[in-house]
């Protein structure tokens, strides 16, 4: 009966995909949704590819997934990947079924599948990955993800012990995931240890073993850092792959792994992306990639343009960066990154709210109060335009943080931010956007390019 249900679901899903293709629409979610609606354990009936890699974690899933997919394809592997589609259960099912025969046999050698943390219980029990890489477990949307303890619980309880884990050793919450899985590879960054404790809230303060306070050797941001419990000896795990040096000037970083130090080209100098790159190197090395294969790949690798892009507007450089609304850590990291970027008289155009995907909402402000606005105090950031309905909340947050209110500009109309950017004054303009705001951000950037005398 179950098998019949599967074939029925597969037929309906494949037909829907065909229909969507004829209509010129994306088939990255709906066919999968149809399949799992008609057959709850649909994913379990599909045959696993030879190598099934799942990528999860709060921030960096798409970047890691793209790095892995790019490296594998460059080296001759056929790869199924859902980075340009959905990462919830329907999206995972869609990616797998569209790359399977009618009987469920996978066509490609490898699948690199990005899995939303909340979907863990709907994916892994049906198709256990051979490898699971987790970048970090951080504060995220309170509505979907609640808190890190809940997400850890979901991931841990969904994984069989056969799964080989690649985990961020510098995220002590992530590093403790799924203790039943014994094959564990840890990565992290030892370079550029911060000397000052950050002010953001931490999601782990007490030792998970004995309940006493954890001592921090250092903390980079939120709870990312190195810890030890003086009471029972519990500590951050040793790293198997460790970034030992970052040379921003020459765009290089060095990784110590398997007893050897190797240097690669930086794909992006934001510390979060260095974590992502190190995680990808760890997993690819475990898969058998050689030094040369990795070096060659990273020499060409880059962050996809949906996350990070640059344009020229006259003399001004316009940088588009995904900031991820509702996700306070991702936004805080981007704010911090911009503050540390070279250049004076920076202007920020923030289009970070849910207006474009949730028109009839009045977005919760809670996450804004978990965001770190202190980077906006930087004197080199001279103007911040908050575009969208939440502009007054951003301004209140800035004022509470002590940001100079003279540089804050509210723009309740989300689509009018570009009109307020003075390209004569600002040569470094940053456009920050939400997950679903890429089209708006690009439209705003094009207006800026036009304003600068260029062709949009």
């Amino acid at each position: 009966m179950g098998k019949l249900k599967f074939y029925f679901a597969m037929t309906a899903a494949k037909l829907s995909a065909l229909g969507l293709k004829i209509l010129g629409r994306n088939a990255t979610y709906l066919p999968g949704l149809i399949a799992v609606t008609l057959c709850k354990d649909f994913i379990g009936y599909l045959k696993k590819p030879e190598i099934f890699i799942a990528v999860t974690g709060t921030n960096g899933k798409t970047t890691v997934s793209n790095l892995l997919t790019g490296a594998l394809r460059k080296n001759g592997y056929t790869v199924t990947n859902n980075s340009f589609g959905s990462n919830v259960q329907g999206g995972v099912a869609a990616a797998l079924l569209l790359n399977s025969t009618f009987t469920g046999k996978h066509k490609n050698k490898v699948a690199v599948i990005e899995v939303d943390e909340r979907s863990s219980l709907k994916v892994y029990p049906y198709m256990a990955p051979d490898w699971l890489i987790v970048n970090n477990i951080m504060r995220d949307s309170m509505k979907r993800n609640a808190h890190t303890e809940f997400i850890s619980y979901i991931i841990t309880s969904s994984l069989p012990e056969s799964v080989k884990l690649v985990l961020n050793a510098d995220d002590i919450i992530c590093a403790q995931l799924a203790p039943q899985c014994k094959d564990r590879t840890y990565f992290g960054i030892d370079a550029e240890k911060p000397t000052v404790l950050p002010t953001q809230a931490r999601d782990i303060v007490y030792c998970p073993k004995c309940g006493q306070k954890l001592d921090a050797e250092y903390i980079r941001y939120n709870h990312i850092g190195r810890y030890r419990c003086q009471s029972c000896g519990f500590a951050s795990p040793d790293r198997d792959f460790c970034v030992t040096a970052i040379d921003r000037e020459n765009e290089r970083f060095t990784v110590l792994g398997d007893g050897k130090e190797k240097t690669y080209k930086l794909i992006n100098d934001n510390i979060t992306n260095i974590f992502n790159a190190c995680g990808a190197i760890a997993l690819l090395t475990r898969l058998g990639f050689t030094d040369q294969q990795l070096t060659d790949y990273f020499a060409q690798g880059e962050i996809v343009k949906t996350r990070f892009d640059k344009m020229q507007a006259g003399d001004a450089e316009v940088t588009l960066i995904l900031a991820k609304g509702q996700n306070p850590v991702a936004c805080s990291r981007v704010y911090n990154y911009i503050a540390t970027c070279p250049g004076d008289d920076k202007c920020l155009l923030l289009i970070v709210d849910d207006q474009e995907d949730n028109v009839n909402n009045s977005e919760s402000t809670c996450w804004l109060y978990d965001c770190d606005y202190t980077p906006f105090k930087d004197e080199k950031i001279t103007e911040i335009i908050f575009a969208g309905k939440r502009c007054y909340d951003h301004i209140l947050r800035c004022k509470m943080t002590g940001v100079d209110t003279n540089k804050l500009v509210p723009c309740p109309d989300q689509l009018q931010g570009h009109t307020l950017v003075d390209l004569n004054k600002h040569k470094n303009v940053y456009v920050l956007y939400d997950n679903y705001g890429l089209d708006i951000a690009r439209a705003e950037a094009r207006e800026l390019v036009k304003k600068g005398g260029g062709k949009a």
Partner: protein
Amino acid sequence: MTVEVLFPEVCNLFGDSKNEEYLRLTLPDAEFIDTDLLTRPYFADNTPDLILMGSMTENTQRRVIETLRPYTERLQALIDGGTVILATGNAGEAFMKHISYVTEEIETDGLGLVDLTVKTDLFRRMNGKVIGKFEDIVMVGFRSQFGLWYGDNSKNAIVKVERGWGLNPDSKLEGARVNNLFCTALLGPILPDNPLFCEYLLSLCGVKAEAACKKEAMTAYEQRIKEFRDPKTEF
């Protein structure tokens, strides 16, 4: 004025910790005491004017309850004496009679200072918005919770809900007030989001102060009221 913040190192989810920051800006001369889980609370031997406690994880909630349990009588005395206590999100659940954690199959008695019970289901996250009246003040806020509250708060609810829901989706009365103990499921920046309520709370402590960044806070507050009252806005 003395403000004790209970367990800010762990009771800080969803932006709740910024209520303390807002009070610090509002009351630059007040003394703030941050009490962690391993330290004897200040209130055990002293009488603070205001006690704050914010949202936490479920594991932390059980630890918080056990940490506070030895001080139940003292807390009762403080409540009877009129000390102002603001518990946001699921912090207020610690003061209630009983919590059933249905997913983990754990039953925990709360401190029993508020006559309500809680049912917490990790696979049922409830989100929403609330607009309503607290006395003459329009209150706006957000909720996001695993726990639903049950019991009779008809005589001591905090907010009479205009849009949104109260103790649970069948209720239009939000939160519970016992003397000056305020247990509200509204979470996050409840004070900066409601500057008039912030001033009211301080008046209960005998302090007449203007809420910090009042102009900006009022602009954001009025915009939110407008949006929450817009029939097109989904709750």
